[in-house]
């Protein structure tokens, strides 16, 4: 493999430096590096970050290839600056056996746009009744360490306790979709002032918070680590903050859309705003941003949830829940966290690459930008600002809430172990 010299890049937003890639590895970081024999990429003051890692992606394959495949999803990931994604288990069939996780893993390897680390289901068929063969998935070629019934909550306290205990044997982690099912029957949007007016079934904050409170206490009791998916309320932030202050081994993620959008948008009854957990209030958005800044929330995860057009081009109640996010995540984080002064680019690297890689044990990802490290890198034009155009997405689906919205930042280059997957904004 050839050499690549990235010239004049602000590494983690710092002073411009040159970064030399040799083969799969970063060979040198410094100023005035020798370009001899190397392809030169003029960074011109763009920001260089370690390749992003998404702990929460729905790639839909197998089963819903009409909305996304491993190929289209990993192309979307590369476009958004990601070098590793964790693929959720709610496929058809469910990723609850070694066979399914190995298939997804191999498809990711074959396509080569982005490492795909499958997440295994906690329970058979996501039904919450019987543990899936977690050990077999861990020992498979896919090497699963993150387990989640995402889309559904592991609501049975005993099953949750056993799962938390069981995965300790091999350093696994359970990622909980916190949603008390009885409190959210028929839920269509955040329960509050707007739902009362619109006559849409309410999804109360307490349905998330009560499960998080239970699970951090369970994790403490059995001495396990637990990860909270898509935390969405101010109350959840307080519970996680309290748990961390007690030394409980809990990590939490927030989605880009929960950092930016509120339930006021539902007044349009436009199902592009329908998502689970639902968009919350301005107060929640503020609390989530602060918590991401102070580290109470560890990471940003996209919950990239592709759906075919017809599943959103309908009345609210009939529409599917979810939004695509891989290709807009970094822009939304720049808008909500960087341009507001809450986080610098080193902080973004931490929340979107370093920490998610640590939580998911994604070897070779989320590493420092320094000599000897794997060349998983992303170059971002942070000066850019422009409207989101879904027609340009690499994802097979277009269900974005940001169509036409002006957002800052554009990923121009992505390298996966020294191989360019995105050059000048174009997939290779």
């Amino acid at each position, binding site marked *: 493999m050839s050499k690549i010299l990235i010239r004049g890049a602000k590494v983690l937003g710092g002073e411009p430096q040159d970064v030399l890639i040799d083969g799969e590895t970063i060979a040198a970081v410094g100023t005035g590096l020798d370009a001899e024999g190397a392809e030169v990429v003029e960074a011109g003051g763009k920001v260089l970050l370690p390749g992003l890692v998404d702990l929460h992606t729905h790639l839909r394959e197998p089963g819903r290839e009409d909305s996304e495949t491993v190929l289209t999803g990993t192309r979307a990931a590369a476009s958004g600056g990601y070098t590793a994604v964790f693929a959720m288990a709610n496929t058809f069939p469910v990723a609850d056996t070694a066979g399914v996780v190995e298939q997804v893993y191999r498809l990711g390897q074959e396509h080569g746009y982005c490492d795909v680390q499958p997440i295994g289901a906690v329970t058979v068929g996501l039904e919450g009744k019987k543990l899936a063969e977690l050990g077999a998935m861990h020992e498979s070629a896919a090497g699963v360490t993150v387990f989640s019934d995402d889309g559904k909550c592991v609501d049975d306290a005993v099953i949750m306790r056993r799962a938390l205990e069981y995965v300790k044997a091999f350093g696994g982690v359970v990622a909980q979709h916190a949603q008390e099912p009885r409190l959210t029957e028929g839920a269509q949007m955040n329960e509050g002032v707007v*739902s009362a007016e619109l006559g849409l079934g309410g999804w109360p904050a307490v349905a998330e918070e009560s499960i998080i409170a239970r699970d951090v206490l369970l994790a403490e009791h059995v001495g396990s680590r637990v990860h909270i998916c898509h935390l969405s309320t101010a109350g959840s932030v307080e519970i996680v903050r309290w748990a961390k202050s007690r030394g409980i081994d809990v990590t939490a993620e927030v989605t880009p859309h929960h950092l930016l959008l509120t339930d006021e948008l539902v007044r349009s*009854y436009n199902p592009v705003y329908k998502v689970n957990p639902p968009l919350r209030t301005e107060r929640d958005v503020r609390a989530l941003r602060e918590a991401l800044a102070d580290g109470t929330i560890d990471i940003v995860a996209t919950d990239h949830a592709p759906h075919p057009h017809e599943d959103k081009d309908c*009345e609210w109640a009939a529409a599917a829940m979810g939004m695509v996010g891989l290709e807009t995540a970094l822009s939304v984080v720049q808008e909500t966290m960087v341009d507001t002064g809450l986080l610098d680019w080193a902080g973004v690297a931490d929340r979107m690459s370093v920490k998610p890689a640590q939580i998911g044990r994604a070897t070779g990802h989320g590493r420092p930008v320094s000599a000897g490290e794997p060349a998983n890198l992303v170059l971002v034009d942070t000066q850019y600002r422009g409207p989101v155009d879904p027609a340009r997405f690499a994802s097979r689906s277009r269900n974005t809430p940001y169509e036409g919205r002006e957002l800052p930042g554009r990923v121009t280059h992505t390298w996966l172990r020294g191989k360019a997957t995105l050059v000048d904004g174009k997939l290779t």
Partner: protein
Amino acid sequence: MQRHLISAADLTRDDAVLILDTAEEMARVADRPIKKLPTLRGRTIVNLFFEDSTRTRISFEAAEKRLSADVINFTAKGSSVSKGESLKDTAQTLEAMGVDAVVIRHGASGAPYRLATSDWIDAAVINAGDGTHQHPTQALLDAFTMRRRLVGRDAGIGQDLAGRRITIVGDVLHSRVARSNVDLLHTLGAEVTLVAPPTLVPVGVETWPCEVSYDLDSTLPKSDAVMMLRVQRERMNAAFFPTEREYSRRYGLDGDRMAKMPEHAIVMHPGPMVRGMEITAEVADSERCTVVEQVANGVSIRMAVLYLLLGGNEPAVSQARTTATEEK
């Protein structure tokens, strides 16, 4: 007036009074031997009912026919919708047939709004009840009934309901009638109090322009009209209240309670009533109960709405008279 009628909250005071005044003109037509006006001749209106509601459908149908519109009834049962056709495809099919207005009843809150704001269809959209969201023509006919009874048929022309005290009792949480009435009555200057067990009041009600009480008995003496909402028996299975009997004892309107109301005060109900649950037969059949009037008024209100949305700006009846004369 806007091009569509989706929510009672979209109406200004002047819009609402114009509709009520127009409905009075329409009501006069109903007193004639021949109850038909040629106003909407040649216009096609489809009644698009995704939920069963014979009452509302025939009320609209009567209104449309009295205005001489061509009427198409579309019910979801046994239609392409039950075979999985989407709202969008149904709408586009109707659009292709050249429909001028769509009267839609749908189980999903927001479906009429979606229809009106999407690019699926050009026709005027009239909400005939969507999920637990809105039912604006019901609120209008209720306001019409109140104005007639509390202000007067002739004295009411041009008037709103300023200062009238209206109490709405029952399952507010699941009620599009309650939402629409709170919006419209507030616009018309009335003071609204909602009475229900706390389980049947939505979280977030605090921003509504009304009072909320859990005690019916203390509210009745301060009411000019008491509107009882239907309470479905199944609600007790979801623990909204313990038993039917307990609900009736605490929130049902019987003769003793009716006696606590001021003498001029009326009892209203959007129907269908569950006798023995929220209202006793004694009250339902009393002189003070306006249920049957509300049905008659519903036709006049729907004629007024259709006329104002589709028929133009000239006075409905005088224009009709002229046209009728020309025809002879």
